[in-house]
């Protein structure tokens, strides 16, 4: 009689089946579980067995009272670490767990490392700089200058290799293709960065430009530290043209952001703030064109209306003048009529007229036998002076 198991057969009780894993498969599967299963995290511990390999990679163990984990820090991350730890140093490390498949080793892959005693000191230094800059008025709203609306040339102080430059160029060209961008190259992280950024900012003053964007793409807190540097902030405040800071991502805020005339949340945003949008300006120009022609036709219409009104008034005035004249004429005609010789003739008078129609005045004109016309009211009668008058 076989033993009845309450939860099914004992795991592995049937012996190796066809589905046997290789060690590599096991480690690969474990690696996938471990490396995909954790978000990056901060771990605090003490450094032991620190060593640097020829390759530039750092290796050490991190331990506390209860446990220990092997740590690796690849050259790229190590090169950005401002200070190399020594054994016994207490540190914060940021990274993710990892499995080295070939050896089946569990380790922690470190991206950033901070000495715990430095963290407090760094914060203190930051506060000191902030207070000094504030005291000198570098954060004053009154010294903020407005950005030019239509900049023709913009200086860009950043790394020639960084994502920030690509973003700025892409967005600026998209919005305003004709803008000239002058790249003033500088390192933006590491020990030399602050001095280089200061030098680059001074160089901006020698360029014919309308404004200046200074910044870099996202990075760790140490990566962005150069934009908290006192000399960098002071150099930024002295730049002759209006400045836009563009440091890291939305959530990153540096002292340079408060010193610049305008803070952009990201490099793309800086380009957006620096140049207008061509389509929008084209729409403005279009509406101005419409208003211009509308304005003129309004005037011509206005003048036309005024002309018409004037013509109406002239006509009315002429009418009035004419009727006044007509009255005068009528009156004068009546007077003339009263004086007319015809009226005299009607009363029985006659006028003697010579051959040429001239009035014969006085006896001398009436020579014996002379023919003349006698003008009466209703016509003319031929007449002759008697021969022996």
């Amino acid at each position, binding site marked *: 009689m076989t033993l009845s198991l309450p939860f099914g057969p004992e795991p592995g009780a049937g012996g190796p089946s066809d589905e046997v894993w290789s060690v590599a498969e096991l480690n690969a599967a474990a690696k996938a579980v471990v490396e995909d299963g954790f978000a990056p995290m901060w771990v605090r511990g003490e450094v032991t067995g620190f060593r640097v390999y020829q390759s530039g990679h750092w290796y050490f163990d991190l331990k506390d009272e209860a446990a220990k984990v092997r740590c690796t820090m690849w050259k790229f991350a190590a090169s950005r670490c401002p200070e190399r730890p020594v054994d016994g140093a207490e540190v914060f490390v940021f990274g993710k767990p990892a499995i080295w498949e070939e050896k089946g080793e569990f380790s922690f892959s470190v991206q950033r490392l901070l000495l715990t005693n430095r963290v407090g000191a760094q914060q203190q230094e930051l506060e000191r700089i902030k207070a000094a800059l504030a005291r000198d008025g570098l954060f004053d709203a009154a010294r903020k200058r407005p950005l030019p609306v239509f900049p023709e040339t913009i200086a860009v102080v950043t790394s020639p290799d960084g994502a920030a430059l690509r973003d700025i160029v892409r967005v600026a060209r998209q919005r305003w293709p004709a803008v000239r961008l002058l790249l003033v190259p500088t390192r933006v992280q590491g020990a030399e960065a602050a001095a280089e950024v200061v030098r680059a900012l001074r160089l901006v003053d020698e360029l014919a430009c309308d404004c200046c964007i200074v910044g870099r793409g996202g990075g760790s807190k140490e990566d962005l530290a150069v934009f908290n540097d006192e000399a960098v902030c002071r150099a930024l405040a002295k730049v002759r043209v209006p400045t836009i800071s563009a440091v890291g991502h939305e959530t990153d805020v540096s002292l340079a952001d408060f010193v610049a005339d305008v803070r952009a949340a990201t490099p793309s945003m800086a380009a957006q703030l620096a140049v207008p949008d061509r389509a929008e*300006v084209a729409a403005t120009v279009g509406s101005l064109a419409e208003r211009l022609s509308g304005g003129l036709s309004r005037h011509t219409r206005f003048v036309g209306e005024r002309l018409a009104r004037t013509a109406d008034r002239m006509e009315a005035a002429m009418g009035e003048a004419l009727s006044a004249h007509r009255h005068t004429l009528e009156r004068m005609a009546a007077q003339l009529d009263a004086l007319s010789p015809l009226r005299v003739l009607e009363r029985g008078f006659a006028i003697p007229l010579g051959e040429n129609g001239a009035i014969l005045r006085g006896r001398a004109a009436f020579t014996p036998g002379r023919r003349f016309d006698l003008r009466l009211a209703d016509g003319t009668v031929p007449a002759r002076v008697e021969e022996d008058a």
Partner: protein
Amino acid sequence: MTKAKEPTLGEELKALEDIVRRLETDGTDLDEALRLFEEGVTRLRRARERLGEAEQSVKLVLESADGTLRMQDADL
């Protein structure tokens, strides 16, 4: 004689705005309106030319050892 600096697009648009505003008021006489209109058309043409200007290359500013500056096309 040196050539006067060409007005910037901003100046051009501001002048246009002024012209349009004056054209839109009743006080201006026809001669003045025609003159304003002509000036407006010229400015509009220049503004449109500005809008159509071609893409500029990005220049890399380099400082020589003697402190002089030179520029070259940036290879992006």
